[in-house]
């Protein structure tokens, strides 16, 4: 396996935080510990040799039946070096939160709200942790694999 520049730098700087890495067909991926996500993101953004200044996507996956159940995925891009990296963090259902990366990339704001809305993973220190796509009063998180497919939600009345 050819470890890339990014993964080498990460392993050098955070030796205890990297759970797993791979570079399958050039897609650099690192699975990291939940506690260190913000420090790792700040490092990826600020380090002179990496400069991942563009957070392209932030999403989540529900691995129902596995433990930890959820996985939050960050897709990062460095405009300067034309490099991409994926950072993955596993989040257990019983303790369903992770540190927000809004202080690192302000654009993560709505992505994190979307993940909260549809998966129910909440983000610590997020400036406005509430639903973004669905409405207040919606019950449950519809992209969870155990969301009942035929569930009917309460209809909402006129605004105000």
């Amino acid at each position, binding site marked *: 396996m050819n470890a890339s520049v990014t993964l080498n730098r990460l392993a050098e700087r955070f030796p205890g935080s990297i759970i797993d890495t791979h570079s399958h067909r050039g897609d650099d991926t690192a699975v990291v510990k939940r506690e260190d996500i913000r420090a790792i993101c700040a490092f990826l953004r600020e380090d002179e040799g990496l400069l991942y200044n563009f957070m392209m996507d932030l999403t989540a996956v529900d691995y129902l039946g596995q433990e930890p159940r959820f996985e939050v995925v960050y897709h990062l891009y460095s405009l300067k070096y034309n490099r991409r990296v994926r950072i993955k963090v596993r989040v257990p259902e019983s303790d369903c939160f992770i540190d927000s990366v809004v202080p690192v990339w302000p654009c993560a704001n709505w992505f994190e709200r979307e993940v909260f809305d549809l998966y129910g993973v909440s983000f610590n220190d997020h400036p406005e942790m509430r639903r973004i*796509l*669905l*409405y207040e*009063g*919606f019950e449950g998180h*519809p992209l969870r694999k155990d*969301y009942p*497919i*035929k*569930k*009917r*939600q*309460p*209809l*909402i*009345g*006129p*605004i105000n």
Partner: protein
Amino acid sequence: MGLENIQYGASQELTQNPPDSEDPERLLGGSVVLTRLESVVNWARKYSFFLYPFITACCGMEFMSVAGPRYDLDRFGAALPRFSPRQADLMMVVGTISHKQAPILVKVYNQMTEPKWVFAFGVCAVSGGFYDNYATVQGIDTLIPVDVYVPGCPPRPEMVIDGFLKLQQKVAKERWSDWPRGASPVTPANMC
């Protein structure tokens, strides 16, 4: 009335229900028309719809087609879309309505002045269509009263015109007591 019973819906209505009193009209030399005020008002209403296009999805293209010169809803007196609900009396709900849009739909409906009618255009507005999921309202009749349902994904312009003629027939039969309908109720959360 000397009209032949031709196949168009609107004329059919006219020939099946001739004006109430032909004899007095003849006695008065044909210079006077006697009818019921209700019929005259309904006749005026059914040929003078002002649409409010509540268009949310791909059915909108088909609505443009039916409103355009080829199929031409103007022939049936429904030429002019009004983009203010205050000036409209026919709400065309064209496309998928999500739960998040539902309050807006009800609010716009309640802002229209009566008499007013609702046209569910396309299967999504009729029943939610294949969007049987957490985000989509399963038919706008769960929110507001609907007069005409035209299914189809999207409906052909001929279907829309047929639905439109049916709406005209419905309007022709209305009574004073049918109005006002009042504001559309909001479904309480514990009812669904």
